[in-house]
């Protein structure tokens, strides 16, 4: 897509490029922009305008989703700073983390097999705590230590995946 605007996602919404987010400010900017460029406002315009409206709105939506979700926001900040988070290329993790991660997986599987929704809920809760702790950490690291931030980001990606597995297990139990 050949969009003419060169701004990064933060500039697009008039926000500082940092991990700590002014969520209300993001939403306010997003809605203001949407209310002006959404395809519904151009349904009777020329084809060129309609296409531009669709492409720009798509980009604004992508930008909004990226900044709103902490994992995507952190990855985007790293990329802006020129660091590859290395989700595929770098799979080295500290042994402690790998061990802890295996522990999570086993616990989820066990509770899931036992059909223990309460245990799954409690796992979800403590995982939430761990994830929040890492998000606080990555916020600090993104200001300086990019290598550390990249590793924290990879950990977070693992843990978010475990959280999805818990949700899926809970869903199966409900069904």
């Amino acid at each position, binding site marked *: 897509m050949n969009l003419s605007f060169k701004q990064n996602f933060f500039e697009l919404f008039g926000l500082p490029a940092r991990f700590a987010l002014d969520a209300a400010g993001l939403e306010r900017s997003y809605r203001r922009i949407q209310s002006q460029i959404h395809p519904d406002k151009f349904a*009777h315009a*020329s084809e060129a*305008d309609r296409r531009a409206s669709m492409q720009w709105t798509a980009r604004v939506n992508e930008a909004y*989703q990226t900044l709103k979700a902490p994992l995507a926001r952190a990855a985007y900040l790293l990329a802006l700073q020129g660091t590859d988070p290395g989700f595929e290329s770098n799979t080295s993790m500290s042994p402690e983390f790998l061990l802890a991660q295996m522990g999570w997986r086993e616990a989820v599987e066990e509770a899931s097999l036992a059909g223990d929704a309460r245990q799954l809920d409690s796992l979800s809760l403590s995982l939430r705590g761990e994830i929040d702790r890492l998000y606080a950490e990555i916020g600090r690291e993104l200001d300086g230590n990019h290598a550390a931030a990249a590793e924290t980001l990879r950990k977070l990606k693992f843990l978010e995946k475990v959280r999805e597995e818990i949700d899926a297990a809970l869903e199966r139990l409900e069904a």
Partner: protein
Amino acid sequence: MSLLQIAEPGDSTAPHEHRIAVGIDLGTTNSLVATVRNGIPVVLNDHEGHSLLPSMVRYLRDGRVQVGFPAQAQLARDPRNTVVSVKRFMGRGLKDVAHIENCPYDFVDQPGILKIRTAAGVKSPVEASAEILRVLRARAEEALIGKSGGALAGAVVTVPAYFDEAQREATRDAARLAGLNVLRLLNEPTAAAIAYGLDNAAEGIYAVYDLGGGTFDISILRLSRGVFEVMATNGDAALGGDDFDQRLFCALAERRGLSMLSPEDTRSLLTKSREAKELLTSQTEVCITARLAAGEAVELTVTQEDFWDLTRNLVAKTLAPTRKALRDAHLDVSDVKGVVMVGGATRMPHVQQAVGGLFRQTPLNNLDPDKVVALGAAIQANVLAGNRHAGEDWLLLDVIPLSLGIETMGGLVERVLPRNSTIPTARAQEFTTFRDGQTAMSIHVVQGERELVSDCRSLARFELRGIPPMAAGAARIRVTFQVDADGLLSVAAREASTGVESAVTVKPSYGLDDGQIAQMLKDSIEHAQEDVRLRALQEQRVEGERMIEATESALRDDADLLAAEELAAIRAAIEALRRLVGGDDHRQIKAQVDRLNRITEPFAGRRMDRIIKGALTGRNVAALGQ
């Protein structure tokens, strides 16, 4: 006495022309057309005063087609040639349709698309749906245009929110085949939310529970300061009131030991079952009586409790997607301020009870569940046609119901756009080659939530060729998914180092290609004894004039964004178009419209940039969300 109109300074001096647009609810059981008249959405009736058009199409031996009540009247006598609930077949193959064994049709199963052999030839669900839409279009033209000879500016056609790509494409094809200019495909629960929200000035989180004749949708919306934001949607595109009839029909057949029924008997018992279901909404007991073609009398008494037991798991099947939608929206039932009930099947008391029980509140039934979708579509059509008035400056943010992804090694799905992404949306993802020296890559686009490709719906396959030979893993293939405001997908792939490109507009194998549509359209026009050329000329003139008006309006606002020579080129192209519109060569008009579109493309981009900048600095004081 009517007041004189004075245009706003800077506006076009001509008073704004009201463009006639309609909203169409193309339902499984019934279809409706509505419009906004004097600021109020109204459903348009037929000559007998009926607002609902039964979604039934009967094909006759002489090629004639009956739609609606005349088709319904012959249903029991001519079940093979009378297509009902055709919406269930849209964008579907034979193996996709539940209870197909109870459908009294002579199906033709071609790879992908399902068709029906009728007395008037083999017909596709798209063609049958187009017949219904044609009747609604004629109804609208007669009521709104009369003999003045104008044209409908366009229509918003609703689809179940949980319809996938193939079903949406099929619906759009049907509308085009019926000669409608489709302004937008709008999700049915979203349409209902617009009608309900604007009517009640609602603010907060609302759930729309839409159980129609053949489809179920649940959408969770946040209504706030003029923004309708769909937070999550879920559903079952093959679950509806029809299934409740089926259960009753099966119980009837089983308890009375009926087997090997003829199509006529099947159809007549299904109709009786449906009538009984409707009666059981208000009665505690009903007696079904029917006479089979062979003369045998059938009788069965069914109590309300009995019926509820038979269909309890159908109701339960709607609650699982409802919980899922809430979870996707990260909400609890206590966050939901109101539950809007849509679709005729929500009249059943046990559905009301189940929904009320889940949400721990009495569902909202203050709008006609049969009409609310068409009314919402009409409101949206009115706005899209450009008839927006002060105070109507609301914004709709809808989502895709199902994740979109591509096939990777081992038959696994890599998700590119997750479900509930706000549309329009675009996302690019990089992939690489698997073998050394690989020069082509096959890209398989799929839709669905499962991890295995074989469990998802295949949408399209295309190839990117001409990748320069490199070591495995060295090529950088950027695949971009784009979903437009109708929820329709296009995919492009590009190799980064060479810029080799390949793109497809995803036309599922179930759809028709543009050539087929054009041919069918031509056939139908010829059938109607219209002059094809004259019609094409009229259409191109309208398009040309619209283009001139839109471009001039853009120039009035933003001409300063153009260099002198750019401005001169655009003005020259407008003048050339104006001359051609006065002539009678529709091909030349079309070519010039395309040319004007091409040269104004950079201008359109700069305008968007300016609008975004203005939105943030407050240049546009009318901005929402403050």
